[in-house]
């Protein structure tokens, strides 16, 4: 769907080249929600904006839907852009136009739509984003979440098959963020839109993404299914994001010095999250366990959980317990043998 071949980008600032994206290969699949997470300055926006060529690449090829975007002329680029919607952190709505006029804008610019057509489409989009009552308001009269809904409706106006989201929820409070993410997930599911979103918040990735790339210093350092990348995290950047997202203070080995036995971290995904696995294994192997830390959550539609437990018992009991846990589909990391 979206294919990067050795795409790189450097900005020229006062005659000096500042690299923002190292040569990158990337494949975003049709119909997926692909997330990019990274700290500020990692190069996320640069990568995203290369997709619709709001930034010109310094080199490499970008191929989308079989079209070599990097080879398009100005005219070709304009018509290509109509198949890619985009939403922004600060919404970027026109303050001088009403909600309905904002949503109608991409169709007006594209031409070839009658005004009755446009009005009908605007009504449909307003229903989809739940803003039917606000059609004649100006953006300044809306809340942040409502503004982003207008942004989403506007991005969908020309019926694109890709939606780019640049920190679309970073200016919103947690509750509004959740609602906007839910809307994005709905659009992905019902319209089959491919979504590429960038964020610096773990939670956004966990809630809606199928796959994730972790960016650092202009490089995608890790990439894969969300659960694989984050449970457990490997790269230092990934680890730092996981740690930041834990509500409580991150516990270190030192905190467990008084704890007896070996310490393992168990990761449950999908069905096994709710199954009484730990109790059964303890009964069957005769091992004792105590829970040191734990959390249960979700990755997109999948339940998942992590427990840090101390296991005390004989060597052979411990071994049997680990084997049984792994057999039950639990990922096991030994923190202290």
């Amino acid at each position, binding site marked *: 769907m979206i294919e990067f071949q050795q795409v790189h980008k450097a900005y020229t600032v006062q005659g000096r080249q500042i690299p923002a994206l190292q040569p990158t290969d990337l494949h975003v699949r049709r119909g997926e929600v692909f997330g990019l997470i990274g700290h500020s300055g990692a190069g996320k926006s640069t990568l995203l904006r290369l997709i619709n060529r709001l930034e010109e690449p310094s080199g490499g090829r970008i191929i989308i839907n079989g079209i070599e975007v990097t080879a398009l002329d100005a005219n070709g680029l304009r018509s290509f852009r109509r198949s890619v919607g*985009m939403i922004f952190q600060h919404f970027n709505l026109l303050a001088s136009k009403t909600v309905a006029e904002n949503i109608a804008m991409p169709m007006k610019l594209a031409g070839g739509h009658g005004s009755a057509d446009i009005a009908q489409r605007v009504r449909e989009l307003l229903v989809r984003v739940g803003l039917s009552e606000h059609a004649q308001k100006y953006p300044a009269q809306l809340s942040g979440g409502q503004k982003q809904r207008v942004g989403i409706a506007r991005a969908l106006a020309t019926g694109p098959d890709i939606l780019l989201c640049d920190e679309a929820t970073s200016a919103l409070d947690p509750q509004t963020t959740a609602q906007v993410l839910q809307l994005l997930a709905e659009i992905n599911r019902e319209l089959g839109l491919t979504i590429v979103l960038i964020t610096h918040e773990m939670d956004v990735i966990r809630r809606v993404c199928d796959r994730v790339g972790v960016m650092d210093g202009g490089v995608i350092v890790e990439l894969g299914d969300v659960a694989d990348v984050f449970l457990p995290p490997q790269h230092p950047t990934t680890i730092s994001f996981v740690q930041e997202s834990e509500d409580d203070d991150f516990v270190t080995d030192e905190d467990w010095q008084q704890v007896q036995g070996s310490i393992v971290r168990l990761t449950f995904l999908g069905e096994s999250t709710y199954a009484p696995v730990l109790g059964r294994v303890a009964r069957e192997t005769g091992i004792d366990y105590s829970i040191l830390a734990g959390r249960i959550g979700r990755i997109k539609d999948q339940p998942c959980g992590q427990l840090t437990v101390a296991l005390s018992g004989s060597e052979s009991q411990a071994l049997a317990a680990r084997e049984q846990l792994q057999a039950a589909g639990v990922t096991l990391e030994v923190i202290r043998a």
Partner: protein
Amino acid sequence: MSAMFVNIDWYEIWLATLDTLLMLGGSLLFTVLLGLPLGVLLFLLGPRQLFAHRGAYAALSLVVNVLRSLPFIILLIVMIPFTVLVTGTSLGVAGAIPPLVVGATPFFARLVETALREVDRGIIEAVQSMGATTGQIIWNALLPEARPGIIAAVTVTAITLVSYTAMAGVVGAGGLGDLAIRFGYQRFQTDVMVVTVVLLLVLVQILQMLGDRLVVHFSRK
């Protein structure tokens, strides 16, 4: 009461008011027609803008600055041959309009440029991401978004033009300012001076109020 206004010929005042309004209306119209595109061009050529071009911007900027630094009274005189060429006369209301336009256009263009720079870059990008042409970006996004700023610029320019018209008396253009100078100042008819100045003040007040109202209306807050 009537003794206070012995020197006043109200018909004369009425004619002068009409001249001032004609000069103001005519010169404001042409100033906006010329200054708006010039301001847009200045903006587009400016650093990091859509048609950023250092050389062209510097050249245009210089022309604008030269015209702006010229005192209006000098411009009036220097422009006489050009004015005759355009209007066939260097006298009267028609003779005053070309120098008024040339004096006010660079000023207005700068104000337009500033108003356009106030438009959030993100809005331009959003419209670009919809596949807009440069013309569409200007018409559908930049100008509507900058409308309050541009209206404020028109207001300031109109008021500046009111004071310029007073000087246009030098080329025999007539108007309230001319009356104030010829009768009020040179013939010591204080009552004429007071009446004309009050009328000019009322005009400026009306312009400012109208402008402010429009700005508020189009700010969509």
